[in-house]
């Protein structure tokens, strides 16, 4: 717990100083290309304490961050916080659904591969997922986009809803789902591999254990031995993996969102890079780090709760 807090502090410090390296004149950059009288600039500098020492500036930074004031985006001139918040639902939907699907499908694949080790089922599952795992996820996205959206026309080419759509309610939801399909498929295929490999190797470890022979000796069917005794023991590392991956829900789809123009945090990051919109990048980075730190902590707690052999948290 303390460790997580320290890490967060470290991230804050890092974030602050890193951007200070480049932002020699934040006020000037903010009003780039606009005709603003010098006194106004000076006044703003004074207000933001830019003439003060680094330490004082850092104190201001911490205070502002605590108040969720991340500054103003260069590109949109809107508060960074507002931009971020409006992008969160789209990312959570996309990456959330993909994470669940990939975890479920990947784990089942890993179970089948391990239980039927060294058969064609195992080899095809293992090789298939290795191939998907070895390609750039956005490249897979590009291919799927071309085949299913451009050539076949079954799905839209990008965005979250049809442009200029005024539909509401169920119709709008269906439209969003239609747009969600390809990016979600891309991410699911890309994330599958991790779950398959981890589940498979964990189950293989468990399969050598004596208590499975004991279960068979008691007269249980093969499937019962697998589901009641082998899998619960094998799932512990997988659950930890899933909990950790939750932390990456926010930052997991940067390139894929860019390919599909999905209006989430990933696309916001990709756009911010092209600026470079430094306040946005700073805010996004802080958010991404905080999410990972938080979910790592949750993962540790979950594991301790699930495995009766581990003492408390």
């Amino acid at each position: 717990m303390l460790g997580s807090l320290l890490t967060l502090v470290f991230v804050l410090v890092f974030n602050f100083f890193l951007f200070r390296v480049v932002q020699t004149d934040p006020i000037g950059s903010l009003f780039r290309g606009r005709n603003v009288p010098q006194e106004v600039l000076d006044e703003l500098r004074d207000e933001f304490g830019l003439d003060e020492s680094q330490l004082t500036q850092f104190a201001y930074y911490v205070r502002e961050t605590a108040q969720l004031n991340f500054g103003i985006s260069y590109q949109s001139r809107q508060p960074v916080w507002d931009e971020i918040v409006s992008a969160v639902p789209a990312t959570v939907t996309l990456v959330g659904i993909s994470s669940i699907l990939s975890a479920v499908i990947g784990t089942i694949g890993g179970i089948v591969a391990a239980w039927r080790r060294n058969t064609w089922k195992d080899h095809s599952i293992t090789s298939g997922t290795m191939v998907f795992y070895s390609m750039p996820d956005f490249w897979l996205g590009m291919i799927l986009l071309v085949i299913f959206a451009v050539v076949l026309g079954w799905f839209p080419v990008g965005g979250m809803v049809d442009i200029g759509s005024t539909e509401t309610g169920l119709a709008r939801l269906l439209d969003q789902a239609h747009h969600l399909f390809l990016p979600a498929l891309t991410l699911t295929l890309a994330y599958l591999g991790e779950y398959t490999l981890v589940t498979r190797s964990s189950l293989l470890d468990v399969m050598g254990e004596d208590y499975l022979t004991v279960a068979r000796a008691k007269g249980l069917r093969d499937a019962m031995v697998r589901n009641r005794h082998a899998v619960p023991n094998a799932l512990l590392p997988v659950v930890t993996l899933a909990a950790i991956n939750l932390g990456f829900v926010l930052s997991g789809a940067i390139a894929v969102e860019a390919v599909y123009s999905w209006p989430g945090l990933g696309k916001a990051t990709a756009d911010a890079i092209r600026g470079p919109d430094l306040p946005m990048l700073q805010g996004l980075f802080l958010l991404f780090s905080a999410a990972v730190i938080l979910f790592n902590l949750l993962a540790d707690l979950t594991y301790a709760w699930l495995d009766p052999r581990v003492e408390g948290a």
Partner: protein
Amino acid sequence: MTSLAMARRRATAARVWGQFRRSRQGMIGLGVLAVFALVALAAPLLADVRDLNPVFARAEGNAQWASPFDHPPLGTDYIRRSVWAQFVWGSRVSLFVGLAATVLTVLIGSVIGIVAGYLGGRSDGALMRVTEWFLVIPFLPLAIVLASVLGRSVWIIIFVIGITSWPSTARLVRAQVLTVKQRLFVDRARSLGAKGSHIVAHHVLPNVSGLILANATLAVPISILTETTLSFLGLGDPSSASWGKTLEEAFVNGAMVRNAWWYFIPAGFGILVVVLAFTLIGRTLEEIANPRLSRAR
């Protein structure tokens, strides 16, 4: 190094190679990698570097967006450049950055891992704290942030990848060093009066190097994929033509909407195959270093 020690090193290398040769996955990986290494090295012979220059391409009379049927072998892009030339010359950059970044990663990670493992105590604690911090921070956002702030050049990309990827190597190496430290011969060497540096060089390193090699080989795919993603997002070196850059240009200039599949398929395919090759080789080396793994797999 004494001749006895050298002979031992050679024998170990021969044994490892013998085991490697017998592994089908290892030899396939090595074969594929050899092909791509040849392509990268023989680039000048395979494709004219001038084909990468849009002015030259225009002068040659190339069409824009020509398909491979019209302009073999891989067609042209939005400014008439040969895609084949980009593929061949891009392999150089992607492979080079992947390898260099990995060397940096493994260097930093190994040094920190060895120092932490060998010294123990407070130095170990402090170094491990730092390692944990880096492990928890999301890797790609960190790389993006660093690259955005530091600039766009091949060397900066290499630096960024190295600086963000070293923690897992450090953890692995440290664990192995701790195991080695337990063994008696280190104590014996110390009681014989051997200095720390000597112990590290002659006892710790040889026992850790197998693991480091396997880990390095598995780290190359991560470096290559990271460089590709960073380039795709626009953080790559504008003057160099890596496969990631090709993908970025294809995307930004509408290759997908035009169904110019010849423009973006080869680069991605190259990455896929090279990454797979390194993964297969790395898994084989892992199994050789730790025979338990091959039975478990």
